[in-house]
């Protein structure tokens, strides 16, 4: 009886460790494909940036453009997805909170240190230099980045989920071009603009 409980305790701790530790990339890739499967199964499309269009429509943006003249109730599943994502984040941050800091490539950390970004501490996902609310000098960068994400995703007709995942796995040429675009923009920002922009931090 005694050994049974010890064994039970050990398995429980192992499961918890597996859940709270970082997950392997293949697990995450499969889970994303599972989300795609569930979306298609229920007759929907998998594309998160459409939620921006939907939110604008709800806010009454059709005053400015017919682009927002849509029946957002058809896309109400997206709002459920948004609420689900926020809840998922909350659970991951509390119940499944990690006990160790993220393991990031040392080369990346070194290059980031040179532009004033320190390595992540335990529990941190984002650098405080950029995302601490009290760090007002970073706000313009967050606004700039946000506008680019919203504008670019809708202009391209999709973001990472709609183009890189759904589109590529359906062999769509426009999606391949969009992903090429993601990398042109991403590489220019990372290697040429960020070193310059971060001097304001």
């Amino acid at each position, binding site marked *: 009886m005694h050994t049974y409980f010890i064994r039970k305790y050990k398995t429980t701790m192992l499961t918890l460790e597996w859940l709270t530790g970082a*997950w392997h*990339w*293949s*697990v*995450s*890739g*499969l889970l*994303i*494909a599972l989300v*795609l499967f569930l979306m298609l199964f229920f007759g929907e499309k998998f594309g*998160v*940036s459409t*939620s*921006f269009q939907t*939110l*604008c429509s709800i806010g009454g943006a059709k005053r400015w*453009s017919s*682009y927002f003249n849509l029946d957002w109730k058809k896309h109400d599943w997206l709002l459920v997805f*948004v609420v689900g994502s926020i809840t998922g*984040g*909350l659970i*991951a941050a509390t119940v499944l909170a990690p006990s160790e800091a*993220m393991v990031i490539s040392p*080369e*990346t950390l070194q290059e*980031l240190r040179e532009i004033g970004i320190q390595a992540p501490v335990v529990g941190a*996902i984002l*650098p405080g230099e950029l*995302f*601490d609310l009290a760090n007002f000098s*970073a*706000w313009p960068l*967050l*606004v700039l*980045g*946000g506008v*680019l*994400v*919203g*504008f670019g*995703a*809708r*202009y*391209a*007709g999709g*973001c*990472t*989920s709609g183009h890189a995942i*759904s589109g590529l*796995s*359906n062999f*769509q040429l*426009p999606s391949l*071009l969009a992903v090429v*675009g993601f*990398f042109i*923009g991403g590489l220019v*920002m990372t290697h040429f*603009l*960020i070193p310059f922009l971060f001097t304001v931090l």
Partner: protein
Amino acid sequence: MTKSEVISWYRIQEMFRFQSFHMYGVIGVAVIAGAVVQQLFKSGYINGYQGLKVSPKDKPKTYRASLLGGTFFGLGWALTGACPGPLYILLGHGYWSILIVIASALIGTLLYGVLRAKLPH
């Protein structure tokens, strides 16, 4: 998403610096597994909920918009380290500054809606 750290700004930086396989692994597995899923639906081997016929639609052939819009999106993705899905997840984590990014993304969307007729597609 959180547990494999794909919502992390640091991971996106690693990806755009080609210093880790992590993000490529996540996206690669998702695309390969996703392709299997889409082919199974297309061939009619599996059906959707209550026998629904699922046929993933082709993306509109707006090649210039894909490339140009994609480039704008990439600039924003590298700067904020978050695409739309992760933005919502990070909000759940209690990163309130993400509200600034989400609000700005809505402004960006609005901007696209207004300018759409004048942009090349």
